[in-house]
């Protein structure tokens, strides 16, 4: 059995030696290099763009602006197509692409980009949602760009004549009366920082436009979604656009949907030559970030600590363009209140346009923001009620098979058992030590996205097999795991299988690589494709062995029809086609039907805890111990589950302790990796326990369900509560760096 074992990543060797080919390594003969002229204003009307000096730079062949895109649909965006490829008459954030310079080499392009003269007339700027929602605020968008895709049905259109990009609301019961009758009502307000999902490979793309076909190699997590945007821009049929995603140097959601692909594509369309666009980290930060959030929550409890009602109000800073911010808000609304039995609920929110970098998906999107408010509120309630924080959760957690959101899938996890793993692992309930605090939290995300996946398995005449999928390998290990699933299903060794991914012209359709869906949904598609291939092989085997189909089955790489009638796969294929030739293709389809009719396809569980120490004099926080639980149903590759959980929790620790994009006036002051501080090895906890819970309760292959985001989601709240227990003061915002913790202990107004 291949599944269930920590098969080493099939990419490990080439990545270690540097042989691995990323999008950035892609080159096409005759290609031009592009550089981007970015706005130096946060909000302004473009008066004119003068490329004349830039065009005199040796090697420069073109300077492209929005005016050159006549005949194209000039914007992109998968839910709200509000994002201009190049700014049209107006810029809405500092760093927005205004013009594209094409040159023979990237140095000439960069030099010439500095010489493009843009004249602006400034408009009033709004950076914070509070400013953008004010009555006198300038309106960032005045058109309705929504596309009306029903699979994004959560995303309603914008509220006209305001800067609200999207509103979302979830409610049941009667919150007001329940709160009136509550024994205790606890109110909490938290701020989650503006983040950048640092991936080592920044956004890049290379595009060619030949014979009416557009061919793009890029860092897209979701090549099929990018294909849609590109087809719309150029009025091409879907078969006229090819998007390929090779190995990605990290994604974490930040490479979801369309980013720099339209820039490369319009460059190729205009110049007639292949065009490469490759950003540096600063450019990447000026392309997409994650939403900051201001969240207010109040919860009512009876005297036993049972939740009677919860109410949330969420404001997200979604930036200048909607990108995936609409869905981030909807997810935040669904994920903020936690997997508890809540008889009365109202969770509502708004994603607000501001003159900042557009925000989009980042690992767990919506969940970390909402969970900080929801779980800190639970811990404060425990304190107020005089009930142990773990016990309060035990009393309220939804049980296996129960529904905590009406109309959604019943809980496919044993949350109380997961919680015990965390609190036991941390030694919760022991004697408190001065300046130490333990914090933990839980979350359940409606993960998996809309279930559409297809896969093909081609079994060749030599007995080797190829798995084809549109799911992208971005370091998470899907190439390995999908190979393990196919090996087990086909009954052959994993080294007889290769997995080819993410080429919209050659691999079958996959909606997205996100929402922790690959193992579950792509895995199911691969499993079904293998079974389809074997069913065909059985029919062929019956003919070859001259038996009835009912007598034939497959076992360990052979087609078997009784003790003395047996042929290997390759023998069957060769005999059926005649000679060393032919192949069998199996097709696997996953759609919203059968066991996947209910949404979400699975609940992604987050259950983590930390033990921290606070230096009361400096405010420096040391995380001594981190515990994660990967409740994945069945670990197809346990080492990869642990790796995902550790990576997710580490990103959570970054947000909790050190990461924040900071606007000082209209521009970011820290769009670089020195001043935007992701955790490094020296910041890791001394002790890390990554537990795996396997109860076979997932809808995916072998009882698996998704992981990889869950262990990020509750980290912020867990760290905040741990610091509260260490210091006696409740933090209300992240990151809790040394300055912030010291200020928490020494508030300015108490000085």
């Amino acid at each position: 059995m291949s599944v269930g074992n920590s098969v080493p990543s099939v990419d490990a060797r080439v990545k270690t030696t540097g042989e691995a080919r990323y999008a950035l390594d892609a080159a096409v003969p005759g290609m031009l290099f592009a550089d981007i002229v970015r706005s130096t204003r946060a909000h302004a009307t473009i008066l004119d763009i003068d490329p004349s000096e830039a065009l005199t730079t040796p090697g420069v062949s073109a300077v492209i602006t929005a005016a050159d895109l006549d005949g194209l649909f000039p914007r992109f965006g998968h839910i709200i197509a509000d994002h201009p490829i190049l700014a049209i008459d107006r810029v809405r954030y500092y760093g927005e692409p205004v013009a594209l310079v094409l040159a023979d080499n990237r140095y000439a392009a960069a030099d010439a980009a500095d010489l493009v003269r843009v004249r602006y007339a400034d408009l009033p700027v709004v950076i914070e949602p509070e400013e953008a929602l004010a009555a006198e605020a300038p309106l960032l968008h005045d058109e309705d760009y929504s596309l009306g895709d029903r699979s994004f049905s959560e995303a309603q259109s914008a509220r006209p004549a305001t800067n609200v990009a999207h509103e979302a609301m979830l409610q049941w019961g009667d919150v007001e009366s329940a709160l009136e009758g509550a024994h205790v009502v606890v109110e909490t307000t938290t701020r989650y920082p503006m983040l950048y999902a640092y991936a080592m490979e920044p956004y890049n793309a290379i595009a060619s436009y030949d014979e009416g076909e557009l061919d793009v190699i890029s860092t897209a997590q979701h090549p099929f979604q990018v294909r849609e945007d590109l087809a719309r821009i150029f009025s091409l049929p879907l078969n006229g656009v090819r998007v390929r995603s090779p190995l990605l140097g990290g994604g974490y959601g930040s490479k979801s949907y369309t980013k720099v692909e339209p820039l490369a594509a319009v460059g190729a369309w205009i110049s007639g030559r292949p065009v490469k666009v490759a950003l540096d980290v600063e450019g990447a930060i000026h392309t997409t970030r994650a939403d900051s959030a201001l969240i207010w929550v109040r919860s009512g409890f009876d005297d036993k600590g049972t939740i009677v009602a919860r109410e949330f109000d969420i404001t997200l800073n979604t930036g200048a363009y909607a990108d995936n911010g609409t869905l981030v808000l909807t997810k935040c609304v669904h994920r903020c209140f936690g997997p508890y039995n809540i008889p009365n609920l109202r969770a509502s929110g708004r994603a607000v346009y501001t003159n900042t970098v557009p925000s989009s998906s980042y690992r767990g999107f919506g969940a970390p923001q909402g969970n900080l408010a929801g779980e800190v509120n639970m811990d404060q309630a425990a304190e107020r009620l005089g009930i142990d924080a773990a016990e309060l959760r035990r009393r309220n957690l939804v049980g296996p098979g129960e529904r905590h959101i009406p109309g959604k899938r019943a809980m496919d996890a044993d949350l109380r058992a997961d919680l015990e793993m965390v609190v036991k692992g941390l030694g919760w309930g022991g004697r408190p030590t001065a300046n130490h605090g333990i914090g933990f939290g839980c979350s359940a995300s409606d993960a998996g996205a809309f279930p559409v996946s297809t896969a093909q398995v081609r079994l060749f005449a030599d007995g080797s097999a190829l798995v084809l999928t549109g799911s992208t390998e971005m370091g998470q290990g899907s190439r390995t795991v999908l190979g393990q699933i196919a090996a087990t299903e086909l009954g052959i060794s994993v080294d007889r299988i290769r997995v080819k991914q993410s080429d919209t012209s050659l691999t079958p359709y996959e909606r997205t690589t996100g929402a922790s869906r690959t193992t579950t949904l792509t895995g199911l598609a691969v499993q079904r494709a293998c079974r389809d291939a074997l069913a065909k092989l059985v029919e062929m085997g019956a003919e070859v062995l001259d038996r009835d189909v009912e007598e034939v089955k497959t076992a360990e790489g052979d087609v078997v029809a009784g003790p003395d009638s047996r042929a290997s796969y390759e023998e069957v294929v060769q005999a059926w086609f005649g000679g060393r030739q032919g192949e069998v293709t199996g097709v696997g389809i996953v759609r919203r039907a059968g066991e996947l009719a209910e949404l979400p396809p699975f609940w992604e569980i987050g259950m983590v805890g930390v033990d921290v120490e606070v230096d009361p004099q400096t405010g420096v926080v040391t995380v001594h111990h981190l515990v994660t639980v990967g409740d994945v149903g069945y670990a197809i590759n346990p080492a990869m589950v642990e790796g995902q959980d550790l990576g997710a929790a580490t990103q959570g620790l970054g947000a909790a302790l050190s990461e924040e994009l900071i606007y000082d006036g209209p521009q970011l002051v820290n769009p670089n990796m020195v001043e935007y501080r992701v955790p490094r090895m020296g910041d890791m906890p001394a002790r890390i326990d990554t537990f795996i819970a396997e109860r076979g309760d997932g809808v995916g292959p072998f009882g698996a369900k998704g992981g990889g985001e869950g262990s990020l989601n509750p980290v912020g709240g867990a760290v905040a509560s741990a610091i509260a227990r260490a210091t006696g003061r409740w933090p209300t915002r992240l990151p809790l760096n040394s300055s912030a913790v010291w200020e928490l202990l020494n508030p300015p107004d108490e000085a």
Partner: protein
Amino acid sequence: MDFVVATDLEEALDALGRGALPLAGGTDLMVGVNAGQRPDNVVALRRVRELRQRNGQRIGAGVTWRVIEDEGPRALAQAARTVGSPQIRNAGTLGGNVGTASPAGDGLPFLAAVDAEIELTSREGVRTLRWDEFFTGVKETARRTDELITAVVLPAALPGRQEFAKIGVRNAMVIATVACVVTRADDGTTTVALGSVAPTPIRIPEAEELAKTLSDPGSAALDEFQHLVAAGVRPITDHRSTEEYRRHGAGVLARRLLTRCLREGAA
């Protein structure tokens, strides 16, 4: 753009005389270049052997952090270990740190604490300036553009006890929020120097005076010492931290380092 790779001091000084910007490890200059600041005249110093030499208390300006972390005086070595990553430490030099004169320069509090001198060489000769004559403001120094920082000269006798510490937002590769060096000689002479809390590295004479009278690491007068340090710094509020936190952190760090020095002395 003119770009000269100097192979000896003569070539370097010639280039400087023609207005070239000196490029040592490039860990500051190249950040500026990547941010669009394009100098039109640069002289690279990496191949100038004279700059990489160490001779008694004279440390060549081109000596890298990587060398200093193994071979430098205790507190300077401690500071070197907090500079960037190993790759950065293999490129970045002490002279570059001095020349850039960032308020957050990791090596500068030590130079202030031991009253180091900066050796400047030009076509007109060699002059040395004490650290407090050399550093004149935020990224401003008394170096003339035709002068090259050729060495940092430490006093012949260094204090027996020296401690460095900094506070940053994470544990490595971080720009200091507060950095501090405390030194103590056998006769009780104490120096307290700080970085990131004023336009230049700064000493706190009042605190040094008080410290001279202290010998007990548990002394109640340490409160007063901490207060004097906090009162003596001139920090600002920016995106990395606040004035209040830096002022407080300066006092806490100095006190901790002095306590370490006193404990060592007692042992």
